[in-house]
């Protein structure tokens, strides 16, 4: 124990010295660096079809002499101090593997509901949806709705059953009656692809955001600070620290977004009619922003709209870091309640982002303080496409509120990245190391040690990839991660829970069809083939492949299962009854730890 504490302080000192190093650079920089990133947008790292990217113009901002944003730095340091304190507290209470992966299964429904909201509401959806609305109006609502409707599905179909059947990862549930090796390898591959690409998106977003807000801190320094902090949170505090970081972040983000929306509404005399008609009057596209069912300027494309809809809904229900949260609660009842709370928080938040986006049209567009070059466009802002919400906070509450929202956005990224890192590490340590390599013979201590090493490894990988992808077009990341989650994790999980006939062969063949199908079609699709690789017109003309891949996965899993005449396949079907009893009654489910 003592060793852990000493080590903890060592790393904490390291993090703090990293921060003061950044501060030193700040003080000594005479000519602050210019925000020169070509596409510094969190929005482009996120909910975008290629057309949106075109519609969210990014601009190389050139703030000549930017004063140091002390409000943001002080508030961010307070957040870091509090979360490190919590990590220390959690570290002294993290002894077993269950503590590390699942916070001792002692999280209550309300706490988990907050943590779910904190895990899910990324800076991408906060800044990204606001930016989509700011540039395209109505179109942003499709993302708000699509990212919410996955939640009821999670509740009705998987949440309680996941808690009753699983231990630490969703692969526990899929491999409950199927063969451990092949299932866990497949599930770990799909989890890791989702986690690593999601991490890249978040890291690039964090670097660009911090660098834009505090230009004295370079992009690389920002990413290193993020990496050091999440490695500290997760290796020492495990799921307990991660959960509380997410809870605090959810409170901050909901509070900040509520204040912004209230500020907008009070400016508009608490009349939605006035808000929307003012926005229509001020936006250069006028009434078109109320008619944008696709990004403004893009062609109507029914198939793409449907595929986007499928991806958003079922992708949510297949994200490994989200599914993992259900193992932290005391029982099935708490799992169920936590989705209700989570859905309410997230739904409320998405409605707020919509108001914030329209508020930005009224208060930020056409304001010379924020617009890059008012003679060219009254929409395009300094610092890039993800800035509307950030500038709106300045328009409403000056430097102080801007500092607060900037710190909140950064806290948001830390919370999401912590959850992702832990999910990735548990796929490696619990599924691959303990279950496949050691065939279940690893001691708890070994498993947790491996997991912590994986956290450090993933943290370092995220930092390196974040730096490598600085100038890359990362617009396909959301399509990639959500497509794999929607086409692999979600259908295989639901089949394993509800369909007696699923065998190992069906699950594995279906799973790999999902992984290979989504990646393959994305690579030959417009975003990667045309925009990233520059290979000319796309072979597969849609950004979101889910409408093809998801049905194919279901068919492959079905056919491969029913044609499976092996004895082991029959045993797996027979084992369904025992699985069903445990899923329904919770008999034999992992109990909450008591210390």
């Amino acid at each position, binding site marked *: 124990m003592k060793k852990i504490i000493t080590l903890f302080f060592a790393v904490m000192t390291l993090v703090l010295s990293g921060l003061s190093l950044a501060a030193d650079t700040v003080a000594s920089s005479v000519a602050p660096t210019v925000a020169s990133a070509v596409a510094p947008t969190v929005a482009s790292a996120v909910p975008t079809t290629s057309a949106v990217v075109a519609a969210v113009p990014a601009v190389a901002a050139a703030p000549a002499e930017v004063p140091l944003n002390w409000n943001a730095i002080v508030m961010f340091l307070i957040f870091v101090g509090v979360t490190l304190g919590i990590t220390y507290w959690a570290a002294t209470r993290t002894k077993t593997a269950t503590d590390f992966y699942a916070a001792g299964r002692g999280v209550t429904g309300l706490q988990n509901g907050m943590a779910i909201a904190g895990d899910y509401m990324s800076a991408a959806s906060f800044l990204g949806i606001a930016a989509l609305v700011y540039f395209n109006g109505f179109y942003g609502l499709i993302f708000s709705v699509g990212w919410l*409707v996955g939640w*009821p599905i999670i509740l*009705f*179909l998987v949440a309680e059953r996941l808690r009753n059947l699983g231990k630490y990862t969703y692969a526990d549930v899929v491999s409950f009656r199927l063969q451990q090796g092949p299932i866990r390898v497949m599930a770990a591959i799909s989890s890791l692809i989702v986690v690593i690409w999601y991490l890249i998106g978040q890291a690039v977003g964090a670097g660009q955001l911090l660098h834009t807000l505090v230009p004295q801190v370079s992009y690389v320094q920002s990413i290193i600070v993020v990496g050091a902090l999440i490695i500290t949170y997760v290796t020492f505090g495990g799921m307990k620290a991660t959960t509380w970081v997410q809870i605090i972040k959810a409170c901050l983000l909901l509070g900040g977004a509520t204040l912004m929306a209230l500020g907008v509404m009070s400016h508009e005399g608490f009349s939605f009619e006035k808000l929307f008609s003012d926005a229509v009057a001020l936006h250069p596209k006028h009434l078109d922003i109320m*008619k944008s069912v696709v990004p403004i300027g893009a062609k109507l494309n029914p198939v793409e709209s449907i595929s986007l809809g499928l991806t958003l*809904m079922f992708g949510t229900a297949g994200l490994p870091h989200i599914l993992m949260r259900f193992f932290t609660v005391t029982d099935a009842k708490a799992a169920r309640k936590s*989705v209700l709370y989570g859905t309410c928080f997230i*739904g409320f938040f998405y409605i707020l982002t919509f108001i914030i986006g329209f508020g930005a049209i009224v208060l930020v567009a056409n304001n010379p303080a924020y617009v890059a070059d008012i003679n060219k466009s009254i929409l395009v802002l300094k610092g890039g496409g993800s800035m509307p919400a950030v500038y709106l906070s300045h328009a409403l509450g000056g430097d102080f509120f801007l500092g607060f929202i900037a710190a909140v956005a950064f806290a948001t990224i830390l919370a999401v990245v912590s959850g992702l890192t832990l999910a990735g590490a548990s796929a490696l340590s619990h599924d691959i190391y303990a279950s496949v390599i050691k065939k279940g013979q690893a001691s708890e201590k070994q498993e947790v040690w491996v997991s912590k090493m994986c956290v450090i490894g993933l943290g370092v990988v995220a930092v390196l990839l974040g730096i490598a992808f600085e100038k890359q077009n990362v617009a396909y990341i959301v399509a990639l991660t959500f497509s794999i989650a929607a086409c692999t994790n979600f259908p295989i999980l639901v089949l394993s829970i509800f369909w007696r006939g699923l065998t190992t062969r069906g699950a594995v063949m279906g799973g790999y069809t999902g992984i290979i199908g989504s990646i393959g079609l994305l690579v030959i699709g417009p975003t990667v083939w045309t925009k990233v690789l520059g290979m000319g017109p796309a072979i597969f003309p849609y950004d979101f492949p889910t409408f093809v891949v998801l049905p194919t996965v279901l068919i492959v899993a079905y056919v491969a299962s029913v044609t499976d005449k092996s004895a082991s396949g029959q045993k797996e079907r027979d084992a369904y009854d025992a699985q069903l009893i445990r899923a*329904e009654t919770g008999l034999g489910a992992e109990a909450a730890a008591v210390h």
Partner: protein
Amino acid sequence: MSLLIASKIQSNPKYLQLVKQRDTLSWTLSAIVCIMYFGFILLIAFAPDVITQPLPNSVIPQGMLLGVGVILASAMLTGVYVYRANGTFDPIVQEIVQEASK
């Protein structure tokens, strides 16, 4: 879980009833959410004129109310499920477990 308890549970009509009831509720509510949401998405895909039709004397399109409605209805349906599960299913599960461990 012992085989004895498992066979007791499986032959308990209350258990079969529970599985049937819960599955019905789960899949019915899922279907309602999907119909609402994909209804909204299909209108966007195939009838954008209907979606963007403004409300009388207003710039607000009908689709905006629909979208917010889908969000609110989704949250309400999660409430319905939690209410039913807490009130109806949990007591039955308890009974089944008690009867099986006698």
